[in-house]
Each structure stands twice: as C-alpha cells, then as structure tokens.
C-alpha cells in the first residue's frame, strides 16, 4: 500500500476513534433514552424491566412498587440547588424555541380541508361532508383496499377488509366489515391503504400523514349514550338545571349569573347545556362548557412526562408534576376571589429540577392570570406574562398553552363558532376508570399505559404516533376559533375541535400572528368515577403536539398515576409554597 494511501487509512481510523469517543460521551441519560436504546437494539423495555424485577424478586429481594404520583402529603421532594445557567435553561429555551418554530413555518395549508383549521367560516367544510366535495382527498390515485402495492403491513391489510371506494360511504364505518378476528365488528385500521375513508373525519394536516404512512389509527365504534355516562348523573342534572341561568358578556366573554347579574361564584355542570349555533356568542359559550368539564374533579394532581421527538426518534424527556384546584364547583375562594389555582414543578432532567410555577386566576372577566416562576438556583420568584404560555416548553414541540387542552383564562381569548361536524377522537376508554379512595377526600386513579411507536418494537409510523392504549372513535364536534386578546401572545388564532356533547378538545390547529398555520395537537383524556358516582374527574391522558415546520413532535402527559382531591389545602398554591418546593 502506498504511503499516502496508508496515511489516508489511518486517518479514517482516527475519525472512527474520535466519533467513538464522542458516542461514549452521550449515554442514555434518562428513562426515555434507555427505552429508546433498548428498542433500537430490538428489545422490549417493558419485558426487560419485568424480567429483571422478577429475577430480583426470585433472588429474595422484593422489588419496590411502581412509582406513584408525587403528593405533597406523601412524597415530599428534596431539591438540590443547581448552577444558575442550568436551572434557568428551561426559561431560556422557551424564549428561543418559539421564534424558531414561527420562523420556520411550513407552507400554507391547502385551501379546502385546511379550511377547518384556518377557521374562515365560508370555507369550513363540515367534517362529515360528502367525500364528493373533497377534491384533494379524492383526486389522488390512492391505493384501494386489500392488496394495494404500498400497503404498509400485510397483517393490517388482512384486518382491513375495507371497501375502499368512498363514493358511497355514508357514514364510512357502516361499510367496514372487519375481517380480522382481533377486531370487533365495525372496527378497522385506517392507514395509507384506505386513507380516503378518513377524508370526511380527519382534518387535512392529519389526513395527509395518514396518507403518507406516518400515521395509522385503529378506529372503533362506541355507544354514544354509554360514552356520555363518563360524566356522573349529578353533572348532567346540574347542567340541565343551568338552562337559562347564565349568559356571557359580548365584549369580554365573561360568564354572567343572570340572577345576580354578576360573575358567578359557583358553577357545576355545563353552564350552557344547549348551544344555538346561530348565536354570535356560541363560541364563548362552548368554551365555558369546556372549562366546566375541566373543573369537574375540583383538585387533581398527576406526575407526567413530556417526550420530544424528531424523525429519528426520541430526543429528550422532561418530567414534572402538575396540581390543579378549581374553586367554581364549590365556591370561589375568598378573600382573594380566585376561581382557579395551579402549581407545576419540573422533576427531570436534573439541571432544571425544581423549576416551578404558580398560577392564580381571579374570578372576573378582565384580570389577567397571575403567574410566577421560581428558579431554585437563584432563589428568585419572577412574575410572568400569561402570554408566555405561547412559548414552547423546553424547546419541545409543545406549548404551555396545551396543558389541559386550553391553559389560558377563557376571557383572554375571543371565541367564534366556525363549524361543526364529526371527527376521529382519541379515546383511552369509553367507560370511566375506577377510583380507589385513599382518604376522605382523595381518590387515586391508575391510568392505562399509553405507548408510542418509538418505544414499541415492530411498530411503524412516526415515532410519536400513539400505537397502544388509545383508539380513535368518531365523535360530533364543534369547530371553534379562538384568538388571544393579548398582542404579546404568539398565537394568531387557534382552531379547536371540541366534542359537541362532552366538551373535550380533541384537535387544535395553531396559526401564528401572520396567519400561517404551523402547529397541531391531538388531545386525549380519561374519565374516572368512584363506585357511587359521587366523585368524578376528567384528566388529560396525553397530548401529541406536532410542529409542521420542523417535523418535530412531543407527547405530553401519559401520567404514571393521578389522584383527585376535592379538598386540597389552599396553602399549597401560594408563593410561600412555591419557594419552599426546592428547600
């Protein structure tokens, strides 16, 4: 070998060694990274964990029980102080990332199906519209039914004995026969092979990903009457009793108790059990119904994670606990006149461990939310503008605004009903999960496991696609446009798909201040009740946020455990507690 050639070869060895040195510096740093590594190696993380726990148990060492959500009473956390830069990282990345997201917007959405997302009433196609009217969905030469050349998975093809010609499908599900033994009658898998079926049920940005193979969904049918029983009878009877009791202020969207002609200090059940789509305040009324459902459990706490993704897979994980307390189902908190309070506390990664936030919402139509952020290393509490909810969380493709579906004060947005129809909604369970009573006021819930493609061996689709633990069901929805009143808010408008009966947000499409669409999010929930229905709650199960410009995504939620507490101590939601969290 010539000397020059030999030198070139040893140079390649040096590069390999240098890359190896670099790879050695990035070990799997948390549970998410570990699961990704195992999945890449072809191992199922859950099976590995079970096998080792069992082996240790056999060895005479009883494994510890699964982790339960952080509770102020049972699991006090000790927070160590971190370097200033590391601890402030969360806030810094928030500021940086939203600009990146907005600067790198995707192209304008196509005019027809995205009309629902763009929110211009004349262009909003009813989502249950005749497929004949959906040219972009129909013009493509899509594969038809079984045996399509690009069908992504033969097994699912077999499960999909779907007549793919959508021309005469109304509703499409009645034509699905369900050829597989593991799918009940009427259920099927919607994927690239039969994507046209979704044309009438999915917003365009989502449908596009089904068509490309990024997404596939198992679609099931549910009994609407049974699904409504997710809310207890008392909630429905309160809602019926509210008929005619409330109104909204045209200019502020403030809720008004018609008897006192003032802001109500108590609210149970939907304030507006009947919505008149022609009413110009219908959008605001729908938003209030949504908020009444949020408040159902009064107080709740979950330990949740936020996982970030790019096309290659998972990139980072945050863990935090979140505690909320709504006063309206009982009575507004006096003397501060608060209708809602919340605290959030980051647990992982360690460099932002202890970064915490406190929200206090005054029970009027005009006061902005009071938000404080605490950074343990500086031991400083800073007041934050509520518009900061439009910042991404830790540079991930998800926003503080997404937490709980809609995090802001209802009155801080202008609302307009722009359409109605039917959409596919991600559902964890069609019946309420049971609650285990652990004290006079506290009930624990064990949520089912939700798994995404990146952590599921032999799965396919985008890494962030939820593939286990949830299913899609057709649900009637209102399509509502919300516009933030605060010019500091980064969102120009948001189009929500909200269940017409349950008032849960299933989809959200976000446009920036220049009117360009750049982000969508999907929301799922689980309802829970105790045995006699006297205690109930609806808790966010997961949120999948997708930044269309950068093709990055995030899954938030998937709580390891949750509990509902109807009598959280008020002191848990004070500035003193916020600063004490890291002591």
């Amino acid at each position, binding site marked *: *070998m010539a000397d020059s050639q*030999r030198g*070139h*070869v*040893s*140079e*390649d*060895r040096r*590069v*390999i*060694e*240098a*890359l*190896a*040195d*670099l*790879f*050695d*510096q*990035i*070990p*799997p740093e948390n*549970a998410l*990274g*570990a*699961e990704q*590594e*195992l999945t*890449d*190696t072809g*191992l199922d*993380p859950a099976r*590995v*964990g*079970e*096998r*080792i*726990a069992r*082996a*240790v*148990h056999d*060895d005479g*060492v*009883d*494994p*510890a029980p*699964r*982790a339960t959500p952080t509770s102020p009473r049972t699991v006090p956390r000790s927070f160590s102080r971190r370097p200033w830069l590391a601890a402030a990282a969360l806030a810094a990345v928030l500021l940086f990332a939203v600009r990146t997201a907005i600067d790198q917007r995707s192209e304008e959405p196509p005019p027809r199906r995205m009309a629902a997302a763009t929110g211009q009433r004349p262009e909003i196609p009813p989502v249950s519209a005749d497929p004949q009217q959906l040219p972009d969905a129909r013009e493509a030469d899509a594969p038809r039914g079984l045996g399509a050349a690009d069908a992504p998975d033969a097994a699912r093809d077999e499960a999909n004995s779907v007549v793919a010609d959508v021309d005469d499908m109304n509703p499409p599900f009645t034509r699905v026969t369900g050829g597989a033994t593991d799918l009940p009658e009427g259920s099927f898998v919607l994927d690239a092979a039969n994507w046209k079926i979704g044309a009438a049920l999915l917003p365009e940005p989502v449908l596009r990903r089904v068509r490309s193979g990024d997404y596939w969904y198992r679609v099931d049918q549910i009994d609407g009457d049974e699904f409504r029983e997710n809310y207890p009878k008392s909630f429905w009877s309160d809602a019926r009793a509210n008929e005619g009791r409330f109104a909204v202020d045209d200019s502020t969207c403030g809720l008004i108790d018609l008897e006192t002609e003032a802001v109500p200090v108590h609210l149970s059940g939907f304030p507006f059990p009947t919505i008149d789509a022609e009413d110009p305040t219908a959008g605001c009324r729908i938003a209030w119904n949504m908020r009444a459902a949020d408040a159902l459990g009064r107080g709740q706490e979950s330990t949740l994670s936020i996982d970030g993704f*790019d096309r*290659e*897979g998972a*990139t980072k994980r945050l863990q935090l606990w979140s505690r909320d307390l709504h006063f309206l189902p009982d009575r507004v908190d006096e003397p501060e006149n608060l209708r809602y309070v919340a605290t959030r506390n980051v647990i992982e990664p360690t460099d932002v461990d202890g970064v915490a936030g406190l929200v206090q919402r005054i029970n009027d139509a005009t006061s902005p939310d009071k938000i404080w952020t605490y950074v343990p290393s500086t031991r400083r509490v800073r007041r934050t503008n509520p518009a900061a909810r439009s910042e991404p969380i830790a*540079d991930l493709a998800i926003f503080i605004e997404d937490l709980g579906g809609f995090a802001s004060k209802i009155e801080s947005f202008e609302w307009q009903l722009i359409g109605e129809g039917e959409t596919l909604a991600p559902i964890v369970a069609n019946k309420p999960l049971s609650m285990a009573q652990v004290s006079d006021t506290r009930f624990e819930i064990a949520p089912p496991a939700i798994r995404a493609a990146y952590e599921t061996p032999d799965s396919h689709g985008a890494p962030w696609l939820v593939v286990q633990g949830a299913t899609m069901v057709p649900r009637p929805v209102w399509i509502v446009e919300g516009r933030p009143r605060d010019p500091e808010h980064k969102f120009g408008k948001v189009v929500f798909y909200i269940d017409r009966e349950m008032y849960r947000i299933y989809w959200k499409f976000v446009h920036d201040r220049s009117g360009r669409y750049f982000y969508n999010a999907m929301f799922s929930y689980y309802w829970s009740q105790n045995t006699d229905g006297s205690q109930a709650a609806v808790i966010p199960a997961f949120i999948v946020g997708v930044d269309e410009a950068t093709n990055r995504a995030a899954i938030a939620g998937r709580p390891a455990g949750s509990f509902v507490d109807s009598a959280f101590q008020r002191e848990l939601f004070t500035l003193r507690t916020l600063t004490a969290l890291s002591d």
Partner: protein
Amino acid sequence: MAIDSKIRRRLQRVDWRAIGVRLTAHAAWRAANLHWRRGDPLLLAAGKTAEDIAMEVIEKVLAGERRWEPERGELLPYLCGVADSLVSHLADSHDNRTYAELDPEVDYPGPPQVDAGASDTRRINDLRRLLRSERQTDLLEVIDAVTLHCDPTPKALADALRTSTADINNRLKRLRRRAMRMLNDAAPADEAGGTHG
C-alpha cells in the same frame, strides 16, 4: 460473601424494574459503541446479550460479590460502572479467546487477510454516503469537523460549528443511531464475506 443487612434493606427499596431497564440499556449502549470502535459485531463472548450482562451485574451486587457503598454514590451509576467493566472484559476475552483457540502445532495457512484500514475507510465512506443520500447535512458537518481535527468533545464541536452544545448532543445521538443501524444492516453481509477486507 454476605451482603450487609443495611445495604440489603436499601436494595429492597429499589425499583428494579426501572433500574433494570436503565442498566440493560447502558450495557447495550456500551456494547454498541465498542462495536463501532472495533468494527467487530461479535463483541460479546459466549453470546451474551445486554440483558445477560445487566442480570450478571445485579446478581454480583445482590450476592455481595461487588459491594455497593451508598455513601459513595447512587446505585445506578455504580451498576453502570460494573457493567462497563464486564463489557470491556467480555470484549477483551473475546479477542483473547480468538487467539487462544489457534493450535500452535497446526500449520495454519495464515490469518485471513483482514485489512482493518480498508474496513475503516469503507465504514466512514458508507456512513457519509448514507447521510448524503438522506440529506442529513447537519450530521455530515459533525463528521467533517472531526475529520478536520476538531477535538472530540461536544463543546469543541459546538464552538467549531457555531451552535449550542445541546444541538451537538442531539446531532451526536442521531448520528450514532444512524451509524449503529448501518453497522447492524451491514453485519450479515460482512459475515457472509468472511472478512472486512
């Protein structure tokens, strides 16, 4: 060797399910990195998997053969250190075993003409080609920077490429995942070919 009762109580409180996943992943990660460094897919002797290594580490600690001292650090980093040591030992013993199995009395025709240097060149070229075809220019930049003698640290790369260390770490994770997938995809062909030469 008996394990201290206090330590045993501590170990009883451990979430072995979670620790097991983290430890197995660490072993898999270490083995994969050695695979990249040495280009040898048969890294772990006796067909041991990452799970086997994790189990072995835990067994050693539970049996007191390896003594974890809580006051000197948390359990997981300690277990990962033991796993590192085991993986290195297995890799070395595999190398040693290869030589030990040769019978000095036999007149072998000579070892296969493995040109390690050519294998390295091919590996780097393949990786570059793959990244180019996928238009992963930000990952190519990392390789270019390393080729231009940038120090192999995320900080130095971040300075060289005028980006953040977090971004470099993210790129390295993606680059590593791509490189490992390429190695794994190539492994059967290599084995069929018999050599890397």
